[in-house]
């Protein structure tokens, strides 16, 4: 069975909950994207940029020191951090910017939390010569200032959002308000497998190259399928990118790691799959952190890229059908995970990615015998050095 269905549903998750003005834009986008997906010239162009510009394929690195320390796990790192701009986000922004150009849009807008998607969007926009405005929560501007400078150097305008929690959720509200206003020339470049149909599907398609490559590389090295896949989940794009190609390989266990912030039994976390309830946020029916009246609760995570009270509908579907499992690690554990990888392998991961790393010792204790695991090393940690200074 193919997901999503015609209305954009993955089981009971997904759909299109947007103001009427956006319906015809989403219809246009769906039509254009479905036709470009089959268009060999378009795919050839995308492959060219992914390879020559972004640096694909990324390596699948066997982390021997990390594996030795963990004893029961053989850990392979899918090195998305080595891509141009330093994270997996560029896979999706190159794809969408080419769609935008084909649709004759002259301006792109995006929301960003950690700034990685903002940087990747500004980069792709510079490459194609499109005007670019990035919405970013004022709290995130503070904690990810390095990425703000990068976006500005790339010629983008960074628009601070100081409503609500001043983070990713509010940046997305403001981007949607901009989009509903500038319907003719503007393309909304969503950074995660979230939002109204067809975004969750389109972003997943662009990111699924992670899992396709990793599967082939693993097979080449080891000659079989991996036992586990592990990735961090905010909106869920790097995790879905890794998971999707393995959907039908039932022996492969998928594990998504959410941000537990100060702990999932406190009010300060971002464990949407762990603690949220089904609701509607930013155009899609998905798990949402909310109170009993349906008001959205502010998420919290040390990692700005995970600090989001919703999660992509396909992850909700994977969870409900038990195709994947989701756990969470705290801010503190994530910092330990960051140090663990940095000091064992000489690779500084992004704080978001560090959540996936921090789960490995827990997984190592659970497994029986020797197991292999592919971790999506979704981004590098340079951007976080500033906010980590005080914690070392």
């Amino acid at each position, binding site marked *: 069975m193919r997901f999503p269905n015609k209305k954009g549903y993955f089981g009971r998750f997904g759909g299109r909950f947007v*103001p009427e003005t956006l*319906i015809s834009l989403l219809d246009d986008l769906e039509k254009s994207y479905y036709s470009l997906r089959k268009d060999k010239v378009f795919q050839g162009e995308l492959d060219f940029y992914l390879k020559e510009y972004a640096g694909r394929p990324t390596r699948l690195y066997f982390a021997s020191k990390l594996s030795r320390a963990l004893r029961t796990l053989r850990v392979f790192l899918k090195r998305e951090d080595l891509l141009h701009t330093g994270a997996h986000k560029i896979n999706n922004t190159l794809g969408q910017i080419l769609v935008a150009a084909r649709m004759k849009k002259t301006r792109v807008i995006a929301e960003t939390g950690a700034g990685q998607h903002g940087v990747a969007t500004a980069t792709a926009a510079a490459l194609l010569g499109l005007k670019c405005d990035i919405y970013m929560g004022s709290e995130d501007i503070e904690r990810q200032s390095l990425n703000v400078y990068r976006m500005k150097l790339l010629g983008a305008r960074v628009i601070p959002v100081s409503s609500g929690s001043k983070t990713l959720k509010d940046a997305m509200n403001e981007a949607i308000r901009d989009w509903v206003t500038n319907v003719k020339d503007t393309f909304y470049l969503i950074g995660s497998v979230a939002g109204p149909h067809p975004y969750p599907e389109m972003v997943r398609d662009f990111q699924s190259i992670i899992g396709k490559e990793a599967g082939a590389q693993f097979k080449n090295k080891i000659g079989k399928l991996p036992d586990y896949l592990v990735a961090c989940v905010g909106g869920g794009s790097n995790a879905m990118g890794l998971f999707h190609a393995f959907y039908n390989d039932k022996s492969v266990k998928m594990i998504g790691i959410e941000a537990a912030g100060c702990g999932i039994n406190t009010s300060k976390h971002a464990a949407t799959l762990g603690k949220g309830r089904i609701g509607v946020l930013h155009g899609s029916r998905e798990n949402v952190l909310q109170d009993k*009246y349906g008001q959205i609760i502010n998420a919290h995570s040390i990692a700005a890229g995970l600090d989001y009270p919703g999660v992509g509908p396909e992850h909700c579907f994977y969870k409900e059908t038990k195709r994947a499992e989701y756990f969470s690690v705290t801010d503190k554990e994530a910092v330990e995970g960051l140090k663990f990888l940095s000091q064992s392998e000489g690779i500084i991961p992004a704080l978001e990615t560090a959540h996936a790393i921090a789960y490995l010792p827990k997984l190592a204790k659970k497994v029986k015998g020797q197991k292999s695991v592919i971790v999506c090393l979704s981004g590098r940690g340079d951007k976080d050095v500033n906010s980590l200074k005080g914690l070392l």
Partner: protein
Amino acid sequence: MDNRIEKKFFSLREKNKKAFIAFITAGYPSLKLTEEIVYGLEQSGVDLIELGVPFSDPLADGPTIQLSSAKALEKGVNLPKILAMVKKIRIKCDLPIALMAYYNTVFQYGEEKFVRDCVISGVDGVIIPDLPPEEGEKLIKHARKHDFATVFFIAPNTTTSRIKFIAGMSSGFIYYVSTSGVTGMRKSLPEGLFLNVKRAKKITKKPICVGFGVSDARQVKQIASVADGVIVGSAIIKTINANINRKDLAKIVSLYVKSLKRYI
């Protein structure tokens, strides 16, 4: 035909008159004052009240309504309290009332329970800016059972075939979004508005009311010349903001709305 909204448009049509619809945020500045403002609006001759249910992430709203919504939430306003207020209002006032709510607040309450409790409390219909009719099957089903109005939107870029579909799903009236964008006052009415409304009126006999960006008497008059009703929101909230500490707030709002309503 027991629905107050439908009855209202029926009688307006018989008299060849247009509707003036006033939007206010429930619980802003307080539920007590909202109640008083409703009575004041009745005095000023308003035909229908659109009562905004505050939501944490109102993505169809501009800064004015966003802020009123956030302030109401800070005071602990929620759907059960709003329904209780309407129930109280119904003792004295028979004006048609529709709730304007974002979908998640209705979804969490439960669509069936929402419709039932609205009807029991005296609410006549609901307007949900982030619910296209395709996603509203369940709500529509329960609404039909209880003669409860479901107002859906059409926008300048809605295709003709879609207008037909939306009109079929709508009851009470159809909300025509004057312009691409969020709620809030604008200096001038968008080009093509009159042609667009006329086009829609050829497709459906249901009343079409125009909202988003209506800011002064001149615009009210222009819209009333073509549509079945005019919806004013942000301009009223601004009037509330400017007089927030006045003891006679409800009276001031009433007089302001009366000054706009004259042009219909």
